C-alpha cells in the first residue's frame, strides 16, 4: 500500500515537471505577447504565427547543419533573430503608423497579418508537417525518484528561469527597459521629455517577437512542426496574458504556471478532459479578478 502511494505521488511529480517544462514555452511566448500588449497596446494575434515561423526556421537550420549540438544552438540563435527581423519590418512598416487606432482595429489587422504569414509559411515550407529530433546530447532521461524525466524537459525547466531573469534585467536594469516601462504607463509624457518613443516601441516589439521565435525554436524538437500550430498556441497565450494582467511579465509567468499545471494535473485526474481544466482556471480567475491576477499596465 505504501509503495503504491509512493508510486502515485512520484508519478504526479513527473507529470508536474513535464507540465512545468511545457510552461516554459508558454511563458516565453506569452511574455513576448504581454510585453507588446503592455507597451505598444497591440493585441498581436500574429504573435502565434511568429512562433510558428520560429519553429520552421529552427527546423531548417537544424536540417541544414545536419543535427547535433552546434546545429541546435545555431537554431536557438538564428530563429529568434530571424523572427525579430520580421518583427522589425512589421513594426516600422505598419504598426508605427497605426498606434492611435482602436484596439479592435489593431486586433483585426494583426489577424490579417496572421492569415498572410500563415500562407507565406505554406509557400516557403510547404503544407507537410516536419519534425526534428532532440539533439543526441539531450536524448535519454534523468532518473527522478525512480521515474524517468527526459533531459530535454529538464533543459526547458532551466531555460524558463533564465529567460525570466534576463527579462527582469532588461526591463529593470537597462535604460531602454526603464524607458519602455515608463512608456507603457504614459507614452506622451515620455516623448515630452525628449525621448524618441517610436524607437522604444520598435525595440519592445522586436524583443517580444524574438521571444516568440525562441519559443518556436525550443518547441521544435518536441512536436510536429505544422501549419496551424500557431492557432492553438496564440489562444492559450492570450488567455495566459489576460489571466496574469495585461502587460505584466510576472503575470505571464504566473498565468503560464497556472495554465501548464492545471493542464498536466487535469490530464492526470481525468485524461479525456485534461485540456479543459486550464480554460476553466482562466474563467474562474477572471470571474473573481476580471483585470487579471497581477497589476496590469493598462
Amino acid at each position, binding site marked *: 500500500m505504501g509503495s503504491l502511494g509512493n508510486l502515485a505521488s512520484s508519478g504526479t511529480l513527473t507529470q508536474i515537471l513535464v507540465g512545468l517544462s511545457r510552461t516554459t514555452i508558454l511563458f516565453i511566448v506569452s511574455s513576448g505577447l504581454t510585453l507588446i500588449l503592455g507597451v505598444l497596446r497591440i493585441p498581436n494575434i500574429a504573435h502565434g504565427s511568429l512562433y510558428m515561423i520560429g519553429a520552421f526556421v529552427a527546423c531548417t537550420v537544424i536540417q541544414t547543419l545536419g543535427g547535433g549540438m552546434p546545429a541546435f544552438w545555431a537554431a536557438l540563435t538564428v530563429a529568434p533573430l530571424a523572427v525579430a527581423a520580421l518583427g522589425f519590418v512589421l513594426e516600422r512598416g505598419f504598426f508605427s503608423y497605426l498606434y492611435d*487606432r482602436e484596439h*479592435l482595429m489593431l486586433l483585426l*489587422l494583426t489577424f490579417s497579418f496572421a492569415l498572410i504569414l500563415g*500562407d507565406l509559411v505554406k*509557400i516557403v515550407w510547404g503544407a507537410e508537417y516536419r519534425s526534428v529530433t532532440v539533439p543526441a546530447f539531450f536524448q535519454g532521461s534523468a532518473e527522478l525518484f525512480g521515474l524517468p524525466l527526459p533531459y530535454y524537459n529538464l533543459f526547458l525547466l532551466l531555460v524558463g528561469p533564465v529567460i525570466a531573469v534576463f527579462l527582469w534585467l532588461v526591463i529593470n536594469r537597462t535604460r531602454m527597459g526603464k524607458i519602455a516601462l515608463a512608456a507603457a504607463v504614459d507614452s506622451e509624457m515620455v516623448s515630452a521629455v525628449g525621448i524618441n518613443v517610436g524607437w522604444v516601441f520598435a525595440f519592445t516589439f522586436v524583443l517580444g517577437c524574438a521571444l516568440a521565435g525562441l519559443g518556436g525554436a525550443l518547441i521544435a524538437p518536441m512536436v510536429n512542426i505544422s501549419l496551424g500550430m500557431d492557432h492553438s498556441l496564440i489562444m492559450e497565450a492570450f*488567455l495566459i496574458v*489576460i489571466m496574469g494582467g495585461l502587460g505584466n511579465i510576472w503575470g505571464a509567468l504566473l498565468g503560464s504556471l497556472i495554465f501548464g499545471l492545471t493542464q498536466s494535473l487535469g490530464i492526470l485526474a481525468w485524461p479525456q478532459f485534461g485540456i*479543459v481544466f486550464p480554460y476553466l482556471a*482562466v474563467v474562474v480567475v477572471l470571474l473573481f479578478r476580471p483585470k487579471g491576477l497581477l497589476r496590469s499596465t493598462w
Partner: protein
Amino acid sequence: MNGRRAALLLLLAVLVALPHALPRFYTYVAAIVLLTGLLATSLNLAIGYGGIYQFHHAVFYGIGAYGTALMLTRTALPAPLGFVVGPLAAALLSLAMGVVCVRLSKLYFGMLQISLGSLVWVTVYRWYSFTGGDDGIHGIPLPDALGSTGGAYYFTLAVTVLCLAAMRRIAASPFGKTLEGIRDNPVRSAAVGVDVRAHQLVTLVIAGFFGGVAGTLFVVVDTSVFPDMMFWTFSLEVLIMCLLGGMYTFFGPFAGAAAIVLLRVFASHYTSYWSLVLGVILTLVIIFLPDGILGYAVRRHRAGEARSA
C-alpha cells in the same frame, strides 16, 4: 427611400429565382452566404449597435448548430422542435455568459467573453461521447422537405429574411436607439435613467439567439456540425465580415459576409493561398477604409448629396 425598397425587392426576386438558374453547388454556396450574413448581422447588433465587445460570437452559432444536431440525432422528437431548441440553447447560453460579462466594461468584457467562449469550445471539442469531439456529427437526418439543396435553400432564405426583418425592427425601435445612445455615451445614458446593463444583456440574448438561428440553418444546409464552427478564429472572421461591410450600417455586415464567403469559394478555385488574398485585402481595408466598404460608399454618397443640395 422608395428606390431602396425597390432594390431590396429586386434582390429578393433574384434570390428566389437563384436555384433555377444555378447549379446545385452554387445554390449551396448561396445558402451559406445567407446564413453567414445572418450570423454577421446578429453580431453587429451587439458590436455595431451596442458597442459591446462580443469577441467570441461564433460560440452561439456553434451551440445553435449543436443543439439542433443533437436533437435530430439523439432524440426521436419531431424535427421542428430541434430547430427551435438550437437557437433557444444559444440564447440561454448568451444569457448566462452575458450575466457575468456585462458587469465589465469594453475590453474586460471582451476578455471574459472570449475565455468563457473558449471553455465552451474546448468542452465540445473533447466531449466525444456526447458531441462527437473533434470529428463533429455528420449526415444529420432532416425532414424530407429540407432534404434537397433547393428545399434547404428556400428554408434558409425564408428564415434569413424573417430574422433580418426582425432585427431591423429591433434596431429601429426605441430600444435600438437607446442602445446606440449607450454605445456612444454610456455614462450619459445611465445619467438620464437608462439601465445600461439590462439593455446590453437583452441585446446579447437577442444577438445570441439569431446567431443560434444561423447555426441551425447551417445544420439544414450542410447536415453536419464540427467544433471549428466555434473556434475563436471563426469569431474573428465574423468580426471581420462586420468590419469589411461597415459596422455602422445595418446591411454592411451582410455584404461583408457575402464578400468573404464568395471570395473563399472563388479564390480557392484558383489558388490554395486564399487566406493570403483575404489577408492582403483586409490589411488594405483596415488601413485605408476603417469604416468598411459599404460605410465608405454611404459616406461618399452622403457627401455627394450634400454637395448637390
